[in-house]
């Protein structure tokens, strides 16, 4: 059980699962000799050869459409794009094909494809290497949408994705690839659809996922300093949501803050906020607050002001607690 950062944890999990299941193949720009833009596929070409680690041209539409055809055949393709921001040329294949081939064929065909998308800000990447597109996927029935927040979860969730039968949009918070190290076990599975309470508290629930979990935890520490005990829920899977954990947290606290990087309007946080009030209205002691990106394209020089900062989260926790 070595201590690995998230990029290494993903790399190790890919390698372990590829040894275990020879139907897993990797496909993407520079996943081969280069080992992936963020190093997550390093060594895999050497270990598994060109029949299982396939360097593709840049075109994201080509990568995703090809992978759909491979998945239909019975392989388990894992695609890596350089940045989630560049997923759109493949969006038709995701929304109209991958997500619904099982449905439209009456369950006769499946499309167990794992779409790995490095996403999120905090790396000075500007407008096209920083975005968080989860909401575009979460409105698409048939997809599983997951975003890990630490190396252990990244490994466990990726393993679940690789052994599952649904297409998975696997959002990797690129700002956390090297953020911290944690132990990674080659048998550990984190079932998709299960959230994780990262901190227990009874005053305010803070819901976060992927890149905003460390911000939520830091804000929770700060809030504790002023006497507010937060329940920090790492959602981990956004579709399907772990409704039981979400509702038991809000039942306990009656107050909620949701933290996300993507623009606020019609973002994933809208669903969560709506769910909280529709299903727990009588518990709610304060309006839910969303601390998210502003409704602007991801800005470059003002990235720090745009992103939900610890300060913004703490301020929201305090407002909600003192409502």
């Amino acid at each position, binding site marked *: 059980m070595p201590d690995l950062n998230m990029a290494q944890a993903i790399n190790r999990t890919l390698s372990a699962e590829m040894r275990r299941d020879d139907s897993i193949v990797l496909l993407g720009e520079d996943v081969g000799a280069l080992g992936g833009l963020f190093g997550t596929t390093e060594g895999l070409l050497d270990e598994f050869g060109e029949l299982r680690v396939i360097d593709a041209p840049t075109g994201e539409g080509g990568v995703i*459409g090809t992978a*759909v055809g491979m998945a239909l055949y019975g392989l388990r393709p894992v695609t890596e794009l350089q940045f989630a921001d560049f997923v759109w040329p493949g969006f038709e294949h995701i929304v109209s094909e991958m997500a619904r081939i099982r*449905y439209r064929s009456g369950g006769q065909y499946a499309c167990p494809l794992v779409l790995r998308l490095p996403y999120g800000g905090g790396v000075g990447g500007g407008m096209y290497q920083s975005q968080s597109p989860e909401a575009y996927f979460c409105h698409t029935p048939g997809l599983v949408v997951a975003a890990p927040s630490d190396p252990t979860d990244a490994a466990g969730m990726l393993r679940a994705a690789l052994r599952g039968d649904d297409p998975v949009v696997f959002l990797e918070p690129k700002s956390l690839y090297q953020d911290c190290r944690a132990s990674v076990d080659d048998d550990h599975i984190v079932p998709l659809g299960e959230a994780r309470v990262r901190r227990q508290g009874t005053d305010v629930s803070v819901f976060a996922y992927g890149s905003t979990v460390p911000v939520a935890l830091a804000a929770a520490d700060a809030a504790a300093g002023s006497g507010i005990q937060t329940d920090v829920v790492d959602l981990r899977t956004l579709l399907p949501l772990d409704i039981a954990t979400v509702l038991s947290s809000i039942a306990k606290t009656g107050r909620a803050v949701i933290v996300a990087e993507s623009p606020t309007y019609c973002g994933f946080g809208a669903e969560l906020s709506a769910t909280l009030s529709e299903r727990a209205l009588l518990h709610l002691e304060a309006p839910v607050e969303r601390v998210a990106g502003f409704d602007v394209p991801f800005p470059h020089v003002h990235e720090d002001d745009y992103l939900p900062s610890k300060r913004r989260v703490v301020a929201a926790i305090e407002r909600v607690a003192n409502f």
Partner: protein
Amino acid sequence: MGELLTVLADDVEAIERNVGDLSDADLTALYESLVVTRVVDERCARLQQSGRIGFWIPSGTSAAVSAGAARAFEDGDWLYPSYRDVGAFLVRGGSIEQLFAQVLSSRDDLARGRQLPGHATLPAGRFVSVSGPLATQIQHAAGTALAMKLRHDPHAVLALFGAAATDQASFQIGLSTAARHAAPVVFVCRCPSTSLASLAMAHGVNPVSVDGTDMLAVYTAARSAREAALAGAGPTLIEAVVPAGTAALEPAVRLRPYLEHRGVWDAGREDEFSRRCEERVAAAVAAAESAGPPAADTMFDDVWAQRPWMLQEQSRKLRRLKDES
């Protein structure tokens, strides 16, 4: 372009040279698929006129392209069809009953009534669920062919589509992907005239043009293309030309003399077969209508491998609503 591949010319010996591998039974089956497709088209047009179905695109004059190309493929090969591929559906083992279960969205439809009439699926024949968006199947076919190659699976893939699909990005990308990997796939485009040869070549795909009303020409071209693909010579794009204004019966009219020459078909057999076919179609329609649609609750199946909580909840809601009425 006067260079369309033709087989059904006057010269019987030349025909035999081209399709010597086809037995009498094979030839009869090919011809019969044209008859079935015509009867299906006619019946579906009537179903549409009477409002019993809301949508039907006839296979019409492209029936020979669909069935002829499909016939060149073997068990274990994969097909990515379009909405005009009743012919291929039949060749791959689909039955008239299955077809009308789909067309009429009966509870016997393998796809549980979820798609418009003509958008069939037939996993046993590796005939993949017809998609709505044009051209996406071209990329999937390339992907499946690449997968076969990676797995040393000695089979090939056939993708069928119309001319409008070639306006889509998926056509360009599908061709270039297939060529890059010399993936064993044959692309067949039914079109009113040829236009794609130089584009195919530029992408590294072998171009072939055939007379799309000549079923044996389509078969021959597809069979050669399949063999070439399996031999590692790369993918082929067959343009199967069916000029605008072609009469619906043209493919059958062209094929029939040769079958008559071989003594396997005549006017009597035609009448007899058509009649049986119409009976079977009528029975299939009746069966599908009396079977009725799948239960409403099946709407919530097959979205994901398991129903997540939202769907369990929505299913309960719908059941309650229906119980109340």
